[in-house]
């Protein structure tokens, strides 16, 4: 075990290096590359936070995009200027119609709303396990999607909210990425995180050691949901539009793929796969465009996915962190 000071030093240095990197990116990259960097960051937040739910506690949740949608819509509505609100959403309740929050508090409220919904949903469905839970969370996702699609007064239905301000940029995304990773890391190497891992490994044994299954599960779902909600806010204000169609089962699958390929429970794995996967799809663009063979990128991606699973069936990092990062924690 090393000293706290060294720990803090590492974080400070990493933080500074990150800031420098962000500044460098902003100075040198074009809009396209910047937006890739932004999306990669958002995917890191999504994958790492889902890893808390799916990886640490072993809850097979397909509901992540639902929390993202909740956070996204809440943030978008809270950030929208009153003028625009009265035009787009004239039927909003007065207190909401007249309210505009800055970006950060709006995102936090979005995250908290998502976490709140996760608490309620979790209380109901977290008695289920494995596939039963997967189907229940998938059902939750579809229900949220249907409700958003049909709740015209607040969400404008399938059209969604558009013309949002482009508030999201690297200065927002990467600090939040750091916060997410920090929280996940802190959790994983704490007593609380161990109890989550224990629940994943063997529920009954964990319970017999005094771990409150229900509380642990609900908590890990809610933590994941909070970050998903925040990521939703970033997402909406990066695209500047938010529609129910974005938060689909396909997106749920994408995030789960990142978590599993990186390694269930491995934060490093989630971060790396989130970056690689969100970049790799773009890597095939030039080829597809030049040869007019759209879909080849997807096929190659799928092949890469299958091969990586054949050679690393437990994910790239298993449930661990690489040794040079882990050393500090033990």
């Amino acid at each position: 075990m090393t000293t706290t000071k060294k720990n803090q030093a590492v974080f400070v240095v990493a933080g500074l290096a990150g800031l420098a990197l962000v500044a460098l990116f902003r100075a040198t990259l074009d809009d396209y590359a910047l937006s890739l960097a932004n999306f990669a960051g958002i995917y890191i937040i999504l994958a790492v936070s889902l890893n808390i739910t799916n990886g640490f506690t072993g809850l097979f949740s397909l509901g992540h995009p639902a929390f993202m949608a909740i956070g996204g819509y809440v943030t978008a509505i809270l950030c929208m200027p009153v003028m625009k609100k009265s035009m787009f959403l004239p039927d909003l309740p007065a207190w909401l119609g007249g309210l505009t929050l800055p970006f950060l508090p709006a995102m936090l409220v979005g995250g908290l709303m998502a976490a709140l919904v996760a608490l309620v949903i979790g209380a109901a469905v977290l008695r289920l396990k494995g596939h039963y839970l997967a189907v229940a969370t998938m059902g939750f996702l579809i229900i949220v999607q249907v409700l958003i699609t049909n709740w015209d007064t607040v969400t404008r239905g399938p059209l969604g909210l558009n013309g949002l301000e482009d508030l999201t940029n690297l200065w927002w995304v990467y600090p939040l990425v750091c916060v997410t990773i920090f929280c996940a890391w802190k959790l994983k190497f704490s007593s609380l995180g161990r109890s989550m891992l224990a629940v994943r490994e063997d529920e009954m044994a964990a319970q017999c050691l005094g771990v409150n299954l229900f509380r642990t599960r609900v908590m890990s779902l809610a933590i994941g949901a909070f970050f998903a909600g925040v990521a939703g806010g970033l997402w909406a204000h990066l695209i500047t539009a938010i529609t129910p169609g974005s938060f689909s089962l396909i997106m749920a699958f994408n995030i789960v793929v990142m978590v599993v390929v990186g390694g269930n429970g491995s934060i490093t794995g989630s971060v790396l796969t989130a970056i690689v996967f969100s970049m790799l799809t773009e890597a095939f663009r030039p080829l597809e465009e030049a040869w007019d063979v759209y879909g080849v990128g997807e096929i190659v991606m799928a092949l890469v996915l299958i091969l990586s699973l054949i050679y690393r069936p437990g994910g790239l990092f298993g449930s661990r962190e690489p040794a040079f990062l882990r050393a500090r924690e033990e």
Partner: protein
Amino acid sequence: ADDTIKIAGLFNLTGGMSSIDTPGLNGAKLAAKLINEKGGLLGKKVEVIGYDTKTDQKAAATGAKKSLADGCVAGLGYGDTTFVMAAAPLYQKKGRPFVTSGATHPMLPKWVGEYMFMAPFGDDDQSYAIADYTYKKLGARKVVVWTDNSMDFTKALSKFFKERFKKLGGEIILEDFFMMGDKDFSAQIARLKKAGADAVFVSSIPNEAGLTTKQIREAGLTLPIVSGDGFDTELITTVPGPKLANDVYFATHTYREDKRPEVLNFIEEYKKEYNRPPENAFAALGFDAVGLIADAIKRAGTTDGKELRKALAATKGYKAVTGEITYSRPSGVPMKGVSVISVKNGKYKVEEVWMPAK
């Protein structure tokens, strides 16, 4: 390179919207090819680069940014408003024009800004056209409206139809809903059967057009089926088969069964290039979108965004495959004729061409 003018074709070539969007890109590429065969533009070749945005808003945003970074002077694409909303504002911000080939929401130019143009008519126009036809020509007074509630396009279509039909004095006796991707409409049909309507308005995209027609007819119902350009697809005759593809009327872009030379030429070239007739109206619209941009470049004599925008806005009487285009309205939606087409025993016939009031 400097000897090509790049135009971005942003379409969902994979994923759920691919059947609608792919023909759009095909049409656009064909247009570029024909222009180049005739010597290109401003002495340069035109290239339409296809960006696949995977039926995903994230990919739409990054695809648009990539196209801008690639130096495309203008963008075109999409058959659905929600994707336009992810891509077009980026063009607006960069000061380069974006022409949607297939999104028909009449508010689009308002929402995005002055760099946003539409190749098709607005949903209000086509809904009014078919509403007029249903009330006046088909003599229907009581109709049932079916709406695909998962899409903005279909919801808007129904909204305008109901508005117009009620104004004309008709009655909407029942509204029913479904979601994109539904395959089974038996419940809606059972209700339709009981309603005793004179006609049913089915607001759907091409994927459900053939399915709904087939199932309504199979259930033994013979009332007229009316719809908008979502029904402009071969599926409407092939899926139910010629015997059941009967008494269907839809409003669409004025190219199907039209004998104007530009239409005939387009269809012939399309067949030559892709070995099949245009799959749906979006092929023609993609073709027209490129044509509009090329026409503006020619008139502007430059590819500079600001000049190009001015030239586009000044488009007057451009002879597009889908009808003459003039941006004369304050809304930015072109004034175009709307064809009302009937299907009888699997055969299409243009019943009338409806013109919006000035």
